[in-house]
């Protein structure tokens, strides 16, 4: 939506294809905020400190040129959002309110905890998404709402020249021709059984990209958010811990003091999630099954909770049947964010590698937000950086495309055959008479991923998971429609989504097995150490032949010294 806004403002003909009405997208669920050095909470704050934290948080496989761009351009992008009307919470001085989040420091890790996450109470994603939609209305962007993008159309030169899309309401299927196709299709948390993600997060962009031969980068890196509500999976923001909440085990012990003596509950998310799992595995979990821990907030007082975390109070009462003003919330690490995605440069241009291993652009295709891997998050994303990522790089994509259009983009038209190739999957689904139903297949996929590719991973167990996935592939490819109607057929959409989930899951599985080290969110029990000699690099997954290769990480920011890899402790 940020990219669309940029392009709509430029006067170029812009259309947004969205499978849901735009304010139903998953950004709406982001709670705690958007991290950026706007120097409100701390007048001395510096984007370079934010960059340092992000590089460290990424466990050193975030690209430093991209992180530099995001952190330095960030303040401008935040102020633009404020000028557009985003209702940020405020300080007494009338500036944007910033709260502490995990992994944040002052003065390159030397100055203690920073407060750098700009917030609109605990509804920042909602406020952001609505503000962007509202400004798209203002700028008369064309929306194809409840249209589903099925597959990419490539011309004979391999350039992306649009998508096949289906109107959910009527079943009408068309080829949408474009000079620039931007994926902002979000994540794929639904590959796991337990996730904070919306039902719609089915990796549609990943599926389309992988089927079109675009590689996927760092797909083994999935963030498990420390605080998903036990049983329900719904997210409880890290802002709870930023505001002073902390995790306790069954003995009431604040156990993060043992694992991260300095940052405690505000260590990186990967560190906190693993610590929680260890507490549970070592028998100090809460509840009759000892399978979760608790997030204590009651000591903050009702006033703070109702003013700073009203949405959390609501969610907790609804889904955990717990009033956080009085009792701690039962929580468990829950799949939350896909750090990997389509490799891009800072302009959002999708990349592949040529035969010599050099980066090569994929003409016509762009990606930004969670589906992209630019990569600013590397092996572990810091809280509050995803909203910044999507705003900064959505904007950057729009700016770059605007410039390219002005200079002239010449792509050959797709031939009838090119269009037919792209439409083949949908055609086959519509024609298929026999096959399994979508729901049990999806359930099976989610269980495999949950059990074999969770917080802790081992080679043997992952290989078992990969072989289960290999057996599942044909069955997923042959999924059958429960409903053949053309009128608002959600069954058809769910089948197409399942195939996207599967592509994303298999990429994750294959690369997770290949990366034989522990780094960031990827924790191997059989390779417990970080291996900079072999793996200080991105992984690339190529769907053809299910091959894994390596791609170098960028260590050459333009205006600051390189941050050299160090042991990561909090």
């Amino acid at each position: 939506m940020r990219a669309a806004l940029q392009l709509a403002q430029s006067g170029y003909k812009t259309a947004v294809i969205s499978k849901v009405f735009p304010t139903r997208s998953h950004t709406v669920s982001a709670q705690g905020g958007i991290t950026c050095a706007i120097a409100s909470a701390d007048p001395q704050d510096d984007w370079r400190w934010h960059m340092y934290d992000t590089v460290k948080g990424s466990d050193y496989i975030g690209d430093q040129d991209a992180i530099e761009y995001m952190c330095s351009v960030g303040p401008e992008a935040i102020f633009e959002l404020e000028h557009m009307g985003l209702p940020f919470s405020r300080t007494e001085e009338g500036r944007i309110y910033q709260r502490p989040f995990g992994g944040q420091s002052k003065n390159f890790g030397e100055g203690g905890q920073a407060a750098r996450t700009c917030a609109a109470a605990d509804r920042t994603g909602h406020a952001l998404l609505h503000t962007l939609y509202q400004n798209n209305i203002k700028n008369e962007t064309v929306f194809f709402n409840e249209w589903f993008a099925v597959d990419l159309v490539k011309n004979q030169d391999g350039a992306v020249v649009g998508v096949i899309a289906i109107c959910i309401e009527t079943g009408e299927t068309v080829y949408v021709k474009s000079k620039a196709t931007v994926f902002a299709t979000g994540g794929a948390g639904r590959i796991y059984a337990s996730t904070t993600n919306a039902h719609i997060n089915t990796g549609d962009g990943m599926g389309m990209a992988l089927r079109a031969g675009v590689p996927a980068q760092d797909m083994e890196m999935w963030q498990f958010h420390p605080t998903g509500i036990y049983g329900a999976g719904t997210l409880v923001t890290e802002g709870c811990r930023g505001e002073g909440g902390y995790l306790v085990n069954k003995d009431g012990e604040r156990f993060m003091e043992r694992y991260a003596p300095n940052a405690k509950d505000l260590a990186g998310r990967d560190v906190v999630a693993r610590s929680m799992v260890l507490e549970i595995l070592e028998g100090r979990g809460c509840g009759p099954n000892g399978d979760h821990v608790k997030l204590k907030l009651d000591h903050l007082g009702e006033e703070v909770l109702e003013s700073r975390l009203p949405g959390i109070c609501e969610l907790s009462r609804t889904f955990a049947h717990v009033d956080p003003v009085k009792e701690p919330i039962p929580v468990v690490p829950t799949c939350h964010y896909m750090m990997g995605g389509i490799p891009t440069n800072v302009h959002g241009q999708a990349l592949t590698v040529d035969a010599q291993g050099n980066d090569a652009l994929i003409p016509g295709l762009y990606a930004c937000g969670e589906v992209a891997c630019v990569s600013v998050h590397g092996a572990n994303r810091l809280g509050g950086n995803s909203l910044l990522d999507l705003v900064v790089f959505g904007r950057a994509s729009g700016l770059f495309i605007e410039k390219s259009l002005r200079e002239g983009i010449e792509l050959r038209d797709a031939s009838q055959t090119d269009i037919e190739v792209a439409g083949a999957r949908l055609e086959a689904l519509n024609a298929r008479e026999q096959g399994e139903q979508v729901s049990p297949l999806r359930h099976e996929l989610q269980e495999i991923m949950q059990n074999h590719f969770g917080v802790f991973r081992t080679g043997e167990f992952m290989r078992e998971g990969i072989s289960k996935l290999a057996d599942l592939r044909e069955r997923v490819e042959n999924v059958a429609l429960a409903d053949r109607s053309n009128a608002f057929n959600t069954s058809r959409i769910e089948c197409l989504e399942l195939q996207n989930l599967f592509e994303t899951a298999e990429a994750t599985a294959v690369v997770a097995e290949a990366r034989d080290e522990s780094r960031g969110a990827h924790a191997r029990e059989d390779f417990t150490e970080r291996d900079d000699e072999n793996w200080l690099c991105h992984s690339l997954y190529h769907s053809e032949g299910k091959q894994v290769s390596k791609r170098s990480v960028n260590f050459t920011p333009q205006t600051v010294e390189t941050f050299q890899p160090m042991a990561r402790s909090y």
Partner: protein
Amino acid sequence: MLQVSLYRYNPETDQAPYMQDFSVDTGDRDLMVLDVLELIKADLDGSVTYRRSCREGVCGSDGLNMNGKNGLACITPLSESVKGGKLVIRPLPGLPVIRDLVVDMSLFYAQYEKVQPYLQNPTPAPAIERLQSPEERAQLDGLYECILCACCSTSCPSFWWNPDRFVGPAGLLQAYRFLADSRDTATEDRLAKLDDPFSVFRCHGIQNCVNVCPKGLNPTKAIGHIRTMLLNRAT
């Protein structure tokens, strides 16, 4: 077993809508209504059609009428909605049905767009944010949180009668959200666009909107503020 009666209508095959009964095994759990719909779609009838996304009450996709009351299926537990062992689920009232529980929300969105739901301030923006005191910002609480689920407008008799001319509670809540924003300078223009017998004044204070809002917002109060502003403007 929970007895569920679902509104069904497929424009391709059905002359008229009908109610279909399902027995759903909830395992005696206090599920959300959305969970029950997911069970029906997965296990009993894959053609049952409804919208859903976040499943935590913030995206506004699954506004439905459950045992006579509008609400979000994903945050409405069975313990609050089932009456006499039965759950009757219908689409939001007053809007054209596309299929089953999916309604055509075009009119609803058109009314939202009509209030120019975006900040207007032509003065050059500063290099940083526009300043706003916590007290000024507090004026937006209870307004900006709207999720456009349409539970309010589709429970409003005035909106049923005049969905094309009465802006309705959701649209008016957003109209006031921008009228109340200290950073917005288009107050006069906004009020002028609302100053007719229908846009605002069709509200008769029935307060169904307040009763059903899943976010606990109060559109009637916001409409009251707009009325006062319009009346002050006239004198």
